[in-house]
C-alpha cells in the first residue's frame, strides 16, 4: 500500500480507477500551464525591477502605453478556461459524478458511515439490501439492520473492510448515521461527502488489484484521523470466495468468530 516516492508529478501511485488517468492528465495539464504563466509573469517582474530601479538620472515616465493591450492576458485566460470547461469539465464531471454505470452490471454496496468507522452492507445472493432502521441501531447492530426483513438474512456487513472485484464498477450508496464524513481513496482520485439524512453516491471501477486506504476527508470529531478503512481489490473469483466466506462466518452456528456479522438481540432492551 505504501508506494515508493517517485516523481509522478507528486501524485500518489498507483492511480487505480478507470477515471484516475483523466484526472491526473488534467492535474498535470493545469499545473504545466500554471507554471508557464507564473514563469512568464515573474520573469517580466524581475526585468522591470532591474530595468526601472530608481537611480541618478533616471526619471519615471508619465504615460502608460499599451493599456488596451493589457486585456490580452485576461482574455487568453478566459479562452483557456472556457476550453477547459467544454473539453474536460462537462464530459469528465458528467461521467464521474453526474451519472453511474448501469447498476445491474455493477457491484452495489451500501456504506453507512459513523464516528469513526465505515460500515459496509452487501446485499448477499438475493441481490436485495435488507431494511435498515435507526430505531434498531445498537452497539452490536451498528447499521440497524432489521432481522424481520427476509432480504436482510443473507446480507453481509463488514466494518472498515470493503472488498470489490477488479475491472467491474462498484457503486457505493452512502449515508451517515451522525455527522458529515467523506469517503476518500487517494488512488482512485475521487472523494464524496457523506451527509446524514440523504444518500450520496460514489462509483469507481478499480483497475489495479491490491489494498488501498480509505480515509475520512471531512472533519468528523476527535477520532477523525483514526477513521481509516481498507479497500481490497481482487479478481472476480477471489471476491466471490471472500463473499462465500463472509456468509459462512455469519451463519447462526458461528457467530463468535472475529469479523463476524453483528449479533442482533432478539428483544430490544428497554432504554
Amino acid at each position, binding site marked *: 500500500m505504501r508506494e515508493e516516492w517517485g516523481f509522478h508529478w507528486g501524485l500518489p501511485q498507483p492511480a487505480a480507477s478507470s477515471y484516475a488517468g483523466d484526472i491526473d492528465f488534467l492535474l498535470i495539464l493545469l499545473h504545466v500551464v500554471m507554471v508557464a504563466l507564473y514563469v512568464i509573469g515573474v520573469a517580466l517582474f524581475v526585468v522591470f525591477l532591474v530595468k526601472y530601479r*530608481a537611480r541618478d538620472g533616471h526619471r519615471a515616465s508619465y504615460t502608460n502605453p499599451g493599456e488596451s493591450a493589457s486585456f490580452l492576458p485576461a482574455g487568453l485566460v478566459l479562452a483557456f478556461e472556457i476550453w477547459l470547461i467544454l473539453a474536460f469539465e462537462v464530459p469528465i464531471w458528467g461521467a464521474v459524478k453526474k451519472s453511474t454505470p448501469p447498476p445491474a452490471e455493477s457491484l452495489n454496496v451500501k456504506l453507512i458511515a459513523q464516528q469513526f468507522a465505515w460500515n459496509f452492507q452487501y446485499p448477499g445472493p438475493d441481490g436485495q439490501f435488507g431494511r435498515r432502521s435507526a430505531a434498531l441501531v445498537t452497539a452490536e447492530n451498528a447499521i440497524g439492520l432489521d432481522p424481520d426483513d427476509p432480504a436482510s438474512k443473507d446480507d453481509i456487513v463488514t466494518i472498515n473492510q470493503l472488498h470489490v472485484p477488479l475491472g467491474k464498477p462498484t457503486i457505493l450508496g452512502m449515508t451517515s448515521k451522525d455527522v458529515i464524513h467523506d469517503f476518500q481513496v487517494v488512488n482512485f482520485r475521487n472523494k464524496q461527502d457523506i451527509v446524514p439524512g440523504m444518500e450520496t453516491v460514489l462509483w469507481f471501477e478499480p483497475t489495479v488489484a491490491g489494498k488501498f486506504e480509505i480515509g475520512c476527508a471531512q*472533519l468528523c470529531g476527535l477520532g477523525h484521523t483514526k477513521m481509516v478503512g481498507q479497500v481490497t481489490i481482487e479478481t472476480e473469483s477471489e471476491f466471490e470466495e471472500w463473499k462465500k466466506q463472509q456468509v459462512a462466518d455469519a451463519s447462526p452456528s458461528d457467530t463468535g468468530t472475529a469479523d463476524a456479522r453483528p449479533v442482533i438481540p432478539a428483544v430490544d432492551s428497554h432504554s
Partner: protein
Amino acid sequence: MTDAHGHAGAHAHAEPQGFIWKYVFSVDHKVIGIQYLVTSLVFLLIGFSMMLLMRWQLAIPTPPDDFDPEKLSLIRSFLNWLFPESMPYGFMDPVFYNQLGAMHGTIMVFLGIVPLGVAAFGNYVMPLQIGAPDMAFPRLNMASYWTFLVGGIVLLASFLAPGGAPQSGWTSYAPLSVVAPAGQTYWLIGMVIIITSSLFGAINFIVTMLNMRAKGLTMGRLPVFCWAQLVTAVLLLLAFPVLEAGAILQLLDRVAGTSFYIPKDLIYGSTVFPRAGGGNPILWQHLFWFLAHPEVYVLLLPPMGIIAEIIATNTRKPLFGYRELVGSMLLIGVLSFIVWAHHMFLSGMRTSLASLFVTTTLTISVPAVAILTCLLMSLRGASIRFNTPMLFALAFLPMFAIGGLTGLPLGFAPTDLHLHDTYYVIGHFHYVVAPGSLIALLGGTYYWYPKMFGRRMSEKLGKIHFWMTVIPMNFVFFPMLIQGMYGMQRRLAVPVEQSHNLPVQGWSLIIGIAAATLFVGQIPFIINFFWSLRSGEAAGENPWNATTLEWACPSPPPHGNFATEPEVFRGPYEYSVPGHKTDYWPQDEAA
C-alpha cells in the same frame, strides 16, 4: 448633511478632553483606526501562536522510537507544564487540535485580517483620502469597535467553556457543530456580535464615501484604496447578514431544540438524537459560503488597494489602467456572490450545479488577472524606490499569484475531486491570505505609520522583518501544496495514522521549522513598532512625496484632520507629470 460635500454631520462632535474620551472611548476615526490596528495585530499574534502549537504537533506527531518521558526536551517540558491535559509530554490531544484549528481560522479571518484591512486602514486612511474630517457616523464607528472587541473576547472565552473551545473547524459544519460542546455556542454568539460590528462599519463606510468627499473629488478621482474599501463595504453589507441569520439558526438548533440543520433519525451517542429532524446539513454550508466566499474578497480587496497606493507612490508614475483596476474590482464584487458553491462540489449538493459554479469561478479569475496585470505593468517605465513598504507591496505580486493560480485546479471540479479537503486547499488560500493579504497589510503599516504617529519606522529593522517574513512564509505554505497533491487531508491531528500520508510527512517538519522562524521574524516588527513611536525619524506631512489627500494634513492629523476643507483638482496618481516642478503633483495643489 446639508449638501453633497457638506461636512456638517461630522462636525457634530467637538474635540474631546481627557485621556479616556480622547484615546479610549473616542469617536475620532483615527483613534478608532489605531485601536483596530493594535487589536487586530494582537489577535493575529494569538492566532499565529495557536498555529505554532499545531505545527509543533504536526512536525512530530507521534513519539519517536527513542522517546523517553523521563527525559523531555525543553520544549516538551514546557508544553507539558503549560497544557498538562491537552498536550501531555508535548503531544497534542486531538480534541485540543480541533479546538486550535477552529479558533486559528476564525481568529485569523474575522479578528485579524478583516479588521486590519477594512477597519484599521479603512477607518484611518479612507476619511483622510477623501478629505473628510471624520466618518459620517462617528458614534456608530465607536460602537463598531467596541462591539467587535466584545465579540472577539466572547470567541476567546470559549476556551473556558465546559468541553473547551469550538472544535468543528472555522466552517462549523452542522451537524458536528450542533452536537459539539458549549464552546460552539460562544462561537455563534461571538460571530453574531462581530457580524453586527461589521455591518455598523460597512454602512458607515458607504455613506462616508458617497457623501463626504472633498470638493472636486469625483468618483473618477478616488484613490484605488477607497474604491477597494467601497466594494468591500458593499460585500460585507450584503453577504454578512446571510451568515448572521445562519448562525442564529444554528444557535437555535443548539439551545432551543430546533432542527434547521438536523435531519431525522440522527444517531448520536448510540441513540436517536431527540429532534424532530427534517433539517438539512447542507443548508448551513450554503449560508456559510454565501458569506465566506465574498469574505475572501473582503480579505483581499483592501490589501490590493493598499498595494496600488504603495506601488503608485514608489514607482513615481501613474498607476497602469486605473479604470481597468476599478472596473475589475467592481466586477469581482458582483461575481463574488455567485461562486460560493465551488466550496461544495463534493458536499452532496446536486451535482449538475457544478458546471455553473465552475464557470462563474473561472470567470472571476479574469478580473483578478486584470488587476495583477495592471499592478505588474505599473512597474514598466517606473523609477522604483525599494523602501520597506514597497518591498512588501512588490512581494505581494508573485506571492498572491501563487494563491490565485492554485485556485484554478480547486475551482475546476474534475481536479477538485482529488484536491478537495487536502493540504492543497490550505496552501492555496494561505498564499492568498498570508503571503498575499497579510504581506500587503504589513506593507500598509509601514506606509501609513508615519501618518499615524508622525514618525517613520526604521528601514533597517523593516527590511530584516521583510526577509524574515517572506522567505519563511514560502517554506511554510509551498510544501503544503506538495502534501496536498499527494492527497494528505487537512484537519488531521495525527496524519501519520493514515499510511498514505507517510511519504509526505517529512515536509511537516520543514513547515514547523519555517513557522517557528516566521514567528521569530516578527520580533523586529514588534520592536520597530514601539521603538519608532518615540525614536523614529520625524516624518513631516508627506514623507513619501505622495499625491493623495492623506498626505496633505499634518502627521498625525489633528482632530478634524484638515485645517480647511481641501479641494481636489486632479486624479490621484499624478506622478512625474512633464513640466511640473516636482515628480509628484498632489491632488489638492492648485494649478
